[in-house]
């Protein structure tokens, strides 16, 4: 209820702002809404939204899988961790823009370079989060599993995975927010479609209506994913903690 009220207040403030600054500085919610509808009717909105969404999903999945594997390896192997940790710090602190530009210059303006840039930008934070999880594994439970001769699969499924699940969920939740922002920059710099590309077009024309007409649906989509997929997943990952174990 409070959320709906809060959204309503936001719309009201936006409307007041649009009235006082004029449509050149801030188009009214209604004008943006009708642009969204117009873009949707031509199929432009769906096409570009779809292209961006596909990039987000692909980059996110790649970064999560690779980041989890590297994070697990670093968390379990101290020598490897000492060796690679400085690299991780370097990549973590390299601006996303630099990685994107290098990817495009080295790989050309194509989909693979775009995907590589997206993945590389998200990778280090996934590694760091999952590494924390691998470090926090309970050695007591590991010993228990060894004494009772748990099979490899059983140990992974029932001892390790439940301990790592909250870290995977945290990495995923933080990751999605990061990835979609990076995808827009990647599209803006070197792709012929996608929300980022359309935003660039709107910027060239100083068309605020078009800018918002692409930004808002995409934000809404990400908020929905966060609310209905990622947050419940994170909650489910540590359900047993609610029993105060």
């Amino acid at each position: 209820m409070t959320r709906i009220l809060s959204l309503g207040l936001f719309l009201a403030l936006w409307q007041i702002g649009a009235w006082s600054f004029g449509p050149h500085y801030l188009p009214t919610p209604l004008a943006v809404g009708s642009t969204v509808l117009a873009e949707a009717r031509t199929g432009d909105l769906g096409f570009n939204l779809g292209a961006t969404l596909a990039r987000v999903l692909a980059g996110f999945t790649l970064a999560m899988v690779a980041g989890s594997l590297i994070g697990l390896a670093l968390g379990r192997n101290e020598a490897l961790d000492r060796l690679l940790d400085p690299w991780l710090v370097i990549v973590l602190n390299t601006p996303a823009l630099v990685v994107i530009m290098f990817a495009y210059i080295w790989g050309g303006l194509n989909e693979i370079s775009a995907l590589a840039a997206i993945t590389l930008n998200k990778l280090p934070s996934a590694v760091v989060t999952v590494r924390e999880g691998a470090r926090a594994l309970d050695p007591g439970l590991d010993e228990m599993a060894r004494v009772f001769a748990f099979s490899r699969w059983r140990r992974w499924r029932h001892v390790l995975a439940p301990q790592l699940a909250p870290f995977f969920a945290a990495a995923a939740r933080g990751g999605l927010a990061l990835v979609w922002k990076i995808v827009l920059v990647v599209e803006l710099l070197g792709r012929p479609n996608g929300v980022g590309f359309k935003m660039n077009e709107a910027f060239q024309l100083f068309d605020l209506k078009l800018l918002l007409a692409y930004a808002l649906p995409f934000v809404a989509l990400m908020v929905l994913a966060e609310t209905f997929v990622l947050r419940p997943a994170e909650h489910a990952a540590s359900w047993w903690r609610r029993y105060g174990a």
Partner: protein
Amino acid sequence: MALEIEIARKAFPLASGGERVIFGGISLSVAEGAVVALLGPSGCGKSTLLRIVAGLDHAFAGTVRNDARTIGMAFQEPRLLPWRTIADNLRLAAPALTDAGMREWLAAFELAGHEGDVPGQLSLGLARRAALARAFAVGPDLLLLDEPFASLDRALHRRLRDLLAARIDDEKSTARKITALIATHDIDDALLLADEVIFLGGAPARILGRLPIAAPRGARDEELTNLRRLAARFQVIGAPENAKSEHA
């Protein structure tokens, strides 16, 4: 199965540098089917010995001959999987356990009605019982119990000890031979549960003496005073002041 333990040296590195020698030469053989209590002050190396026997600690000089096929162990903490129910915790450790077997072990440790609970819903006493049930449920030929009653209130401690004594006798009455090592700092636990009490003490720890007990477990309550007197020969333990100076 018999157990032969020969530890020439076992030491732990200290945070301040250097190391603390836990065992500087200790040898112990346990006959098949024997229930042996390791009695000594806290920190004297009982847990370390159990961990070495369990194969969890290989960083020592010496040999352990242990041909147990199945080990059942209860650690000092219950070490149940917090995200699995009690029934699943038992089943994961003992995949061959039948439904009837499950009910039997839950009943034996007075856990009936708790099979669907996760460990976080249980009191420490219940969690300890679940851990003991798990150790028995795997059908072990070697049973390792590390301070099975630590930090329980006295009434629960006694009840659980009686339960455990009854289970040991039950197991012994079957054809299977179950060898057990029980680490404890409580002299009465040792005297009431074991066929033989091994007194550990000193630093590095050595065997101060061995006391075989022939009386049946069920009939020891009346004899406890006598047994305590016998145990006093080795003593250090049971007299907390001595134990402390020994430990220090």
